[in-house]
Each structure stands twice: as structure tokens, then as C-alpha cells.
């Protein structure tokens, strides 16, 4: 772990073949490299360096072997996640303050370069900032069993007075549109986040309106599925699950069943490219008037039910580097020219469905002296939040079974929320 100056904050060597000079090699060749390094994997003197940069902090893994590169990066990200959950934001100060903790964590996370256990929940059971109090033998065996056991992510004996669970379906809509309004690529990457406050070792079953799943269900028991609506099933391209989900069961029975970890986690991730209802359309019109003037007109159309409200809508219209002044007129919301970002930022707090708003701006340009630096017209990007899932994803049911403790599915209070967010929502102009 380095800070932005290349000073070492944390370093832990797991194998003999890497010496202290590797530390310097990375500093010289990557952090202070004359040209920006163009790959996250670098080979310096037959030693491979993998790095990930988070704000000002460099996380670097070093090896001489032919190891699994995907594993390394996945681990580095996991490590960031674990550190984040222990002490919040990852910056130099926090790292310095918690270096003992980090060493302790590293001890558990990796052994001889092999990732061991990276689940925050479990780690918190036995690595605490207070230091471990003297534990009884039973306690420690319980911990070790849990760390290594089949269900490493949940400890036993959890009790809640109110059994509650929250489901958030968060989708980010990615779009790349040509200036003519042709969709070049669009996909939704969605995540199902779950917060569970359930007692005991509950087994959950989760149902969604995916075509494959629904169809196989129908085949399995035609009576119950016959009532299911014919339309409204979506075709999910691919989905990935948290490690608690029994993948083999999903493969054979198309059932998502799992024992959830306690607290917050990401249950599944999915991706969808078909039949996406795009919440917004941006229609740009750019005209260059002579050498020193440009005219930009941007129309934003909202394309969903009028009863729904979109929030935090923001349109970012890039301007050339040699912009000297901008006059903006817009019907709704606030628009400002931000010189530091080279963009006009148009913010609309709320926007109902089926509306169409327009912004027009005149951009004054300095006389372009360095013509070589051509403006490349970056795309217009957009941010928003809408209260529905653009892919049409729906949670059909979530059933909780806990055989030992006597509470049933009905006693669990469940909350479901859909959020559609903008991912990279861009229109070329």
C-alpha cells in the first residue's frame, strides 16, 4: 500500500522471492513513471506488479509466479472492501491510524499468498479494534468452526425481536446513443441488495420474473404458475450470485435459495440487454457559428409513466477547452457553466414522466490558436434516479423458512424498493 508520493504505508511480504527492492521498483517504474502507466499489470525485471488505485492510495500486489491474475485483482478489491467496512474511507490518514489492524487483517486475509477468508462479517467476529479479550475455549472453537465451515458467512444464535428484511433492486442503466438517436448499445446492470435482520439460520427462497426461471417453474407445477401473467417476464442475460446462494440448485431447479448473512449484502447481480425502457432521451443539436461561437440546443425527454417522478436529474454538456463564456437559457431547473469541468451542468431536481424540456446555450470561444488540439466532442452524459426498474425486473416473492425457531414467513416484515439509476448514460453529439 502506497500513498500518492510513493511512500510505503503498509507492506507485507508473504514469500521469499520478493525483496524489499521490489517496493522501490514499483515506486520508480509505476508511481513516478515519466509516462503514465498504461496497464494495471506491469512486468519489471521478471517480477509482475498488479495495482489498483483508489483516490490517492495505490494498492499493489507483487509476484514472480504465473498466478491467477483475476484472483489478484478480485482480492485487491475485496481488501479495499474489508478495509472500508472497518474504518470507512480509504485514505492515507485512516490507513496510518489503523495500520496494526490492517496487519492483523492481512494475516487473516492471506496466507502465503493464498486468499483465505475475506468476508467482513466473519472477520469482525474475531478481529476487533479493541483487541481480543481472553475467550473461553468454546467461544474460540465456535469461531474457528465458523470461519472454516460451510456457512462461513453467518454465525449461529442471532436473535431479533422484529424479523425484518429489506430488498433494494438497484439498476444502473447504461446507454450509448448516436447523435441521430440510434441506440448504439444499452444494457442494464442490476443488483439486488438485501438487508436482513432475521433470527436463527433462516433459509430463504427468492423469486423473480426471469423468463427461464418462470418457465421452468411452470413446467414444475403448472397449477400455481398458470395464474402468472403471461407478459412481464424479462430475459436476463446473465446473473451472478453471492456466495451464499446454492449455485448447483440454481442450475438444476432454477431456484434461488440461500441462507443470508446477517446485515447488508449483495444477493445477486444481473445484466439485461433486451427490452429496456429508457427513462430519458437526450436530443442534442450543436452548431458551430464561425470560429468563435457555438450554439448548443439540448432537449431532454422523459419517457415513463406521468405519475412517477425522477430525481436528481443532471445533464452534463461538455464544452470546448477554449470556451470563454457561455449564455444559457433553460425552461426548468438550473444550468450553470462550470469552467473547471469544461461543461455546462444542468440540474433538475424533479421531473415527471412524459415531459420534454429544453436548454439552449451560446458558447463563445477564444480564437483557437492551437488548432492542433482539436476538440473531440465528448458525449453528453446524464445522471438521474427513477423509482422503477428499467429492465422490468420484478421480485415475485421472497419466502423465509426457519425450522428451529418458531416464526413463519408471515411474521417477517419485508420491504422492497426499486431504484433505477444512471450508469454511463451518454449521447454523442
Amino acid at each position: 500500500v502506497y500513498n500518492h508520493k510513493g511512500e510505503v504505508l503498509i507492506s507485507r511480504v508473504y514469500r521469499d522471492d520478493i525483496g524489499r527492492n521490489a517496493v522501490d521498483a514499483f515506486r520508480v517504474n509505476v508511481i513516478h513513471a515519466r509516462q503514465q502507466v498504461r496497464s494495471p499489470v506491469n512486468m519489471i525485471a521478471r517480477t509482475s506488479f498488479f495495482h489498483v488505485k483508489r483516490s490517492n492510495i495505490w494498492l499493489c500486489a507483487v509476484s514472480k509466479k504465473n498466478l491467477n491474475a483475476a484472483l489478484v485483482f478480485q482480492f485487491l478489491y475485496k481488501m479495499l472492501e474489508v478495509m472500508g467496512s472497518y474504518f470507512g474511507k480509504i485514505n492515507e490518514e485512516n490507513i496510518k491510524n489503523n495500520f496494526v489492524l490492517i496487519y492483523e487483517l492481512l494475516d487473516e486475509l492471506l496466507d502465503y499468498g493464498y486468499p483465505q477468508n475475506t468476508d467482513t462479517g466473519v472477520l469482525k467476529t474475531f478481529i476487533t479494534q479493541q483487541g481480543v479479550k481472553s475467550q473461553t475455549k468454546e467461544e474460540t472453537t465456535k469461531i474457528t468452526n465458523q470461519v472454516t465451515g460451510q456457512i462461513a458467512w453467518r454465525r449461529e444464535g442471532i436473535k431479533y425481536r422484529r424479523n425484518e428484511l429489506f430488498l433494494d433492486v438497484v439498476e444502473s442503466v447504461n446507454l450509448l446513443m448516436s447523435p441521430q438517436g440510434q441506440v448504439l448499445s444499452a444494457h442494464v446492470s442490476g443488483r439486488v441488495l438485501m438487508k436482513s435482520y432475521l433470527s436463527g439460520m433462516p433459509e430463504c427462497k427468492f423469486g423473480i420474473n426471469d423468463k427461464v426461471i418462470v418457465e421452468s417453474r411452470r413446467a414444475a407445477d403448472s397449477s400455481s404458475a398458470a395464474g402468472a401473467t403471461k407478459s412481464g417476464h424479462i430475459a436476463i442475460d446473465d446473473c451472478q450470485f453471492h456466495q451464499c446462494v446454492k449455485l448447483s440448485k440454481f442450475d438444476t431447479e432454477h431456484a434461488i435459495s440461500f441462507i443470508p448473512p446477517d446485515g447488508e449484502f449483495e444477493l445477486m447481480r444481473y445484466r439485461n440487454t433486451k427490452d429496456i425502457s429508457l427513462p430519458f432521451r437526450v436530443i442534442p443539436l450543436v452548431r458551430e457559428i464561425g470560429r468563435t461561437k457555438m450554439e448548443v440546443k439540448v432537449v431532454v425527454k422523459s419517457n415513463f409513466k406521468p405519475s412517477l417522478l425522477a430525481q436528481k436529474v443532471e445533464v452534463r454538456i461538455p464544452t470546448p477547452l477554449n470556451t470563454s463564456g457561455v449564455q444559457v437559457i433553460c425552461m426548468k431547473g438550473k444550468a450553470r457553466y462550470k469552467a473547471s469541468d469544461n461543461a455546462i451542468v444542468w440540474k433538475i431536481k424533479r421531473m415527471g414522466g412524459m415531459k420534454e424540456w429544453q436548454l439552449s446555450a451560446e458558447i463563445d470561444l477564444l480564437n483557437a490558436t492551437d488548432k492542433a488540439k482539436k476538440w473531440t466532442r465528448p458525449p453528453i452524459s446524464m445522471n438521474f434516479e427513477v423509482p422503477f426498474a428499467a429492465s422490468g425486473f420484478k421480485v415475485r416473492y421472497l419466502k423465509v423458512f426457519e425450522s428451529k425457531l418458531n416464526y413463519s414467513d408471515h411474521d417477517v416484515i419485508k420491504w422492497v424498493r426499486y431504484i433505477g439509476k444512471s450508469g454511463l448514460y451518454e449521447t454523442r453529439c
Partner: protein
Amino acid sequence: ASVSESLGNIRPWLQKVTTQAKTTDSKYFTTTRKGEIFELKAELNSERKDKRKEAVKKVIASMTVGKDVSTLFPDVVNCMQADNLELKKLVYLYLMNYAKTQPDKAIMAVNTFVRDCEDPNPLIRALAVRTIGCIRVDEITAYLCDPLRKCLKDEDPYVRKTAAVCVAKLHDIDPLLVEEQGFLDALKELLADSNPMVVANAVAAITEISDSAQTDTAADMLCWSGQLINKLLTALNECTEWGQVFILDAVANYTPTENNEAQNMIERVSPRLAHANAAVVLSAVKVIMKLLEMLDPNSDFVLSTIKKLSAPLVTLLSSEPEIQYVALRNINLIVQKRPDILKQELKVFFVKYNDPIYVKLEKLDILIRLTSAANIANVLAELKEYATEVDVDFVRKAVRAIGRCAIKVESAAERCVSTLLDLIQTKVNYVVQEAIVVIKDIFRKYPNKYESVIGTLCENLDTLDEPEARASMIWIIGEYAERIDNADELLESFLEGFADEQTAVQLQLLTSVVKLFLKRPTDTQELVQQALSLATQEADNPDLRDRGYIYWRLLSTDPAAAKQVVLAEKPLISEETDLLEPNLLDELICHIGSLASVYHKPPAAFVDGRGGGQVAKATKGLPSRLAAEAGGAAAAAAGAGGGDFGAGTGAPGRPAVSVIPTQESLIGDLLDIDMSGGATAAAAMAAASASTNQQPVDLLGEGLDSLLGGPAPSATSPVPPSGASAAAGGSGADSLADIFGGLGGGVGGGLGGGGGFDPPMETWLPAQKGKGLQIEGRFLRRGPQLSMELRLRNNAMQQLNGFAVQFNKNSFGLAPAQPLAMNPLAPQQSVTTLLPLNTKGPVQKMDPLLTLQVAVKNNIDIFYFACLIPMYALFTEEGDMDKRVFLSTWKDIPPENETQFNLGSYAHDADTASTMLRSFNVFTIAKRSVESTDMLYQCVKLTNGILVLAELKIVPQTNAYTLSLKSRHVEIYPGVHEAYLAVLKG
């Protein structure tokens, strides 16, 4: 208690050490706060626990920053006995860092370790085992075995899983110890453990051990039965994500015996494709890709599996950029292997504005691979968009990609060309240059189709400053000289700066001027003479000079022939130009997810082998059901050859693999030889053409014709070998026949003739290292003539030509008696050739004595390999001598030079043995029988005149052979011994 007692004794001594350190390491003390170490020392010895803890933390902090706090070693170790777990961890951390520098003091900690290994708290037990394995001090390792054995059988899974990894650590320190102590078996038992995490760690440890194994038992650790694999796949469901990666990676090494098994495995692995961890997904992909090779490619099962693969791969692209990068590099491989998987998913590879540059470049690469007539319109629009971006490299690649589209999809070529023209109009310097290079390729593919654009190109002549772009432009001018009115002026303007140009440009310029002359001979004579004299008289580069001379000769003797040579039809370049070589690709497929797949290099190219690697590690290969198919693919890609443009601008078909030669130290040496070799050959050529004035027309004509047998002559080779040697031979027909017959007759004779035995061919240069060129060879002696028989095989996808061979200095001064006579080698073709050797080369004693380092050059690169000369190849026919001479020589050699070897027993009697040896120029001088034991006195003379006298004793009943050697040069005994063994074994 015993430790603290011993500490008590040591302390006064230690204080002395630290004070000494203070005086010598004063510079260190000035850099830290004054007295800091002493303060820490006091705190470490403090009575209060919390204060001690603080102090240890401070120590660790300074250790991290790189300060040397090793002087505090004993004080820190003292804190180790605390029962506070956190403190203990810190102390252990300190120990790991400094134990190696202070092994004698580290011993003090051993007792605590051993005790901690039996602590009731499993966390402490595990911690102790974990730490102890990281302390690489021999003395400590010895103490480690017993506790480790206990921990491997610990009741607590947490301890067991830590112990499993510890075995791997120990193996790294001392592999023999691990085997002796039976840890390998213990590890195997853990594979059947009830706890999935223990299993996963055991798998990881075993994989590691077998990778670095030096003995067979360890290497065999990975040879698992199908049953075990089955078990592991079951455990897969219960493992943590990392454990799944370990298991999948290990399973990938297993090759099932039958199709059903493979199918079953695929079914069980495929659920992993839906895992959130990219490493799990990629490892699962790897297993599946490998197993798919075994199955019938047209079966429904395979097709449906391939369908299943695409979605997860695409999903990887929505993860973090670094993981995307790894995924993209792998997808690049997969697309080459099985293009169908992702052909529907083109759009996900469209570049996003915010992608990091490394992701952009990779996406672009894949985009091109997936381009087809069906989607070309979309792709082209995207590429045009990219070409206006900011990043120089990316833009260049995008421009190049447009060219590749044009070459790949003929129907779109016109659109591509007009896009390129648009880009040239932007006048952005690097875009223009790149576009010109690309247009040159398009001209090669579609000759005489788009020359209307030449005018536009010529407008941009002045802005070109990169050699490749200049060379491309010059090529275009030369090629279309008859249609460009002012071609002579343009070339002349280039010629003015001839000396400042790079070689590639110079060569191209020379060729183009000659082309121009041949097309418009009337008004360009002056120009061509100027160019030729520049090339032949003022250039230092032998390649350039040679090409100049060839042209000169051609033009002055037979312009018609020159026309045939220079303006010959060029083969069309084919579309897929930067595919990896199939062998390499297959190997890389086996490494999906790993670094090898990111670098696109075989692991051997960047991982240091350990300890010479006594156990030959078989490189991983795909199960070879489809060997034939792979061959077909290679053949399909063949003909991507360098062509005449290979001369300057880099052969388009060059595989993008770099090879790291094994004997790096010698490169310089050999390169040196190469240069001088080229120069002498050039000199010979010049001399020959000067002296034999009547003959060479024919001679050269034929030589060049033979060169033209391939697509085009490569001017990068120092001198066309056959032509040069023919000319150098001077005596015309004889030598010519000799050389051209060298391939057929010479080899035929070589193979057919001779009663002696021929050793089997050895592989000297594997195809992976030779960029597709594989060389096998052996040494033969036919009568007085020693020669090297080479079998060259072209596994690359392009034609190989311009072969030349050089030997490094060696112990016996072996050198090629004549240049290597080789016709161009078409892809998948193999040719056997006989290279006569002499012993007039430079001599330098090598170690091992019989090593011969060889450099082989072709149009791709220079390759180096080493082989062993068998000693019998060096036995000359002059070994016979008079009995008396033998006797006196024997006596002359001091008795201490006599060495005896036991040769084992053979069925031959003394006479047969004598005849056998005689055919290898081992001369029997005398024979005598003493008490029914036959004694043969023999003599051998080596090529460098060294005499070896031998006494071969044969006991008839047992047929036991004993050899006594006597010579003034004892170094050669092992070689002679080997030779005897080889001959007697037949």
C-alpha cells in the same frame, strides 16, 4: 521459562552489540529522532502491558517505513510470551521480517513457538504454525516438523487449513525434508477432509508443490484419479470463493479419460459461471474450454455449452476496470480459439468514453476479431468515432483497425478507404502517418483498385516523419511509379536525406528506385545510379549493401531478369494477421485467468525456473483430440507471409510473441558473429561477382530464381544463401549441384548410407521458442566429413526464408563448412538438410566441454540454442598408429592421468567390439589375452589432435567391459566414456 533464562545471560552481551552498532551505524541514527531506539528499548522492557504494546506498535511502524529496527530483536522477542493475541501477532510479524537477518537470535523464539503450537486456543495454534513457516531459518525449520505434524491432524479445522499451507511453505525451504517426513502423504489425506476450506488449502498447497517439484514423487502429486476429482467438485459447492478458484485451477490440470467424464465435469463446473467472483468465473471458463477440446465439436452438448459461456464473459466487462482488463485479454484468446462464442456480442466491446486506456485498446482488438461482413457498418462507424479521440496510441490503433477491416471484409474495403481519406484530411500528423501505413496494406490486398487515392497521399508527403510511414509511402510510389508523374522527383527528394534514414526506409527506397527505373528506364538512370552508389559505397549496413549489389548486378547484366525479380507478382496478404501461433494459443488457453494469459506469453517466458529444474516439466497442452483440426487452422492462416514488404516495414504475419532466449549471456557474443558473418558473406559475394565475369549471369539467375520460388526474396537475410555460396564456390556447376542437391541427394545419401548407427534426432529448438520454427538435429560422420543434420519444421503461419546459421566459439572449433542451403520453408512444411562442418572455427573451451551454441537466423528473428556434440563425431580417421608408438605414448602420459570406467556388460566378444568401434574411428592397435581376459589397446585421435589411448578389458564369462583411458587432457574423458557407451549399446 527457559527462554527468559537464556535471555538473561545474553542481555549483557547484547548491549555490547548494540553499542557497537551505534558507533558503526551512526548515519542511521542521525536519520531518526535521536535516542528513539533507546526509548523504544526501555518501553519494550517496561512492566506495564499497555506500554509494551504501544512500543511494539511503534517498532512495527518504523519497520514498515523501511527503518532498520533489528537491533531491538531480543527485546521484541521478549514480549512474545504475552498472552495478548494482538500483541503476539505483532511480535510474530516482527519476527518474520527480521529472523532471517538474525538467525542465531531467532533460535531464542523457538521454544515459544513450539509451546504456542499446543496452546488450547486454536487461533494461537494456527498463528504459531503460520508464522513458523514464514521464518526461513534452517535451525528453526528443524524444530518445525513435529508441531506441524501434530497440527495437520489437529481437531480444529482452522488449524488444519493453516497447517496445509505451511507444508507448501516448508517445501519451498527444504523440499527433501518435506518428503522425508511424509508431509506429502499427510497433505493428500487432507484432500479427503470433511471441512471444505481445509480441502481447498490442501489443493492449493499441492498445486504449488508439484509446480516447483524437483523429484518425481512431488511432481506426481497432481496426478489425481477421477474419483478424487469427483470429490473435489463436490467440495466446490461448499468452498469460499477463493477455495473454488484453487480447486478449479487444480481440476484444470486433470485430463479425463473418456468423453462422458468430460461432459459430466463440464456440467458440474458450469454453475460456477454465475459466481460473482471474476476469478471463479475465469477458472471455470478455463476448465470448460479445456474439456471442450475432447468432445465432438458438432455435438449439441458442445454447442449449448459454448452458448452458456458467452453471457458470463460479457458480464465480466461490467466489473472494475482492472478485472475488465484481465477478462479482455482472456477473451482475446478465447475469441481466437472459438470465435463463435462471442460473435453475437459485438456491441459490448464498443469503447466507452470513460474506459481506461488499457481497456480501450483491448476492446478495440477484440472488436476487430469479431468483425464480419454482417456487422462491418456498425464497427466502421465506431472506429471512425475512435479515430477522433485524444489518446495517440488509441487513435493509431483505431486507424490501423480500419485497415484491417478493409482487408478482412472485401465488400467494405471501399468504405474503409474513403473513411481513411477523410481521416487524412484532418491533417493530424499521427493519424495521417498511420493511415498511410494502413493504405499500403490495402494496396497489397487489392492491387490496382484504389490508386485514385494516391494523389491525396502525395500531398502529405512532407509531414511524414516516422520511418514506417515513410517506408510505406516510398513503397506506394515505387509500386505505382508509372502512374505518378513526378515519382522521380518525389523519390529524389527522399534520396537527398538517404544517410539520415533508418534502414527500413533505406531498403525500401532502394527497391522503389529500382522499380521506378525498370518502369521508366529512360529518364531515371541517373537516379538509380545515385541510389545504388549510395547503398553500396556509403552504407554501413550489410543488408543494404547486399541488396544494392544484387540490384546492380541484375541491372547491369540482364534487365529482363531484373524485371522478373523486382516486379514479380506479389502474393496477396491475408486477413488475420496477428493471430497467435496455434500451439501457443492452446497452451495459453490452459492458463486462462493467469498472468500468462494477460501477457500472452507462455509462463516459462517470464517465470524463473527453479534450481535448473531436474524434472522436466511438461508444458500444459490441450487434450489433443483435435490435433488435425489445429493443423488445419494453421494451414488456413498460412500464406500470411511477409512478402516483399517484409523487408522494411515488419512482416505483417509476425506472431506477437517474444521469446526470451535461454542463454542470455551469450547473445552479445553471437550477435557479434552474426554481423561479421553477414559482412564476410557480402565480401565473398562481391569478390565472386568481380572475378567470375562470364558465369555469374546464369548462376545468379538461377540462384535468384530459386529464391523466387517462395513468394518473394527477403532482403533482411544477410545474403541469399544459395546464391552466395554458389558464387563463392566459383567452380560453377559442381558446387551448384552440390548445393541444390544438398537438400535431396545429400540428405538421401546421408540417411541411406553408412553402416554405423545414427543417433536419433534431438529437438534443439522447440517451436514455441523459435516463433514457429522447430529445429531437430544430430551430428553425423560420413567418412572424413563431419556434418550436422538438421530437420527444420515451420509451425508458423507464414513462410520462413532467408536461413543462415552460425556457431559460437566452441571447444573444438566446429564451424559450418558452407552456408546453410535452404529453400524458403512453407508453413507446416518440414525439410531435412545436411550441413557439412569443419573444425577451422575459433576455439574457446566451453563448459560443459561439448556444448555447441548455435544461432539460426531467418526472416523472423535470430534464434539461439545449444546442443551437445557427441564425442564420437570428433574421432578422426588418423587415429591409427604403430604399436611401438602406442607403447611409448602410453608410457609418456603420467599415470595419474589414467582413469577407469566400468562400462557394464555387453553380448559382443572382443572382435565384434573392435569392429564396431573401428567404424567410429576407434582404432584397435593391439589385442592380448591374459588369463582368458581380452585386452584391447585402442587409440583415438580427435579433430584437434588430442590423442586418447584406451585399454578395454573384457572378461568373457561375464562380458563385463572395463575401460581405462589415458590422455594428456583429462577433461575429455567423460565424453569419450559416453562415446564408448553409445557405440557399444548400438
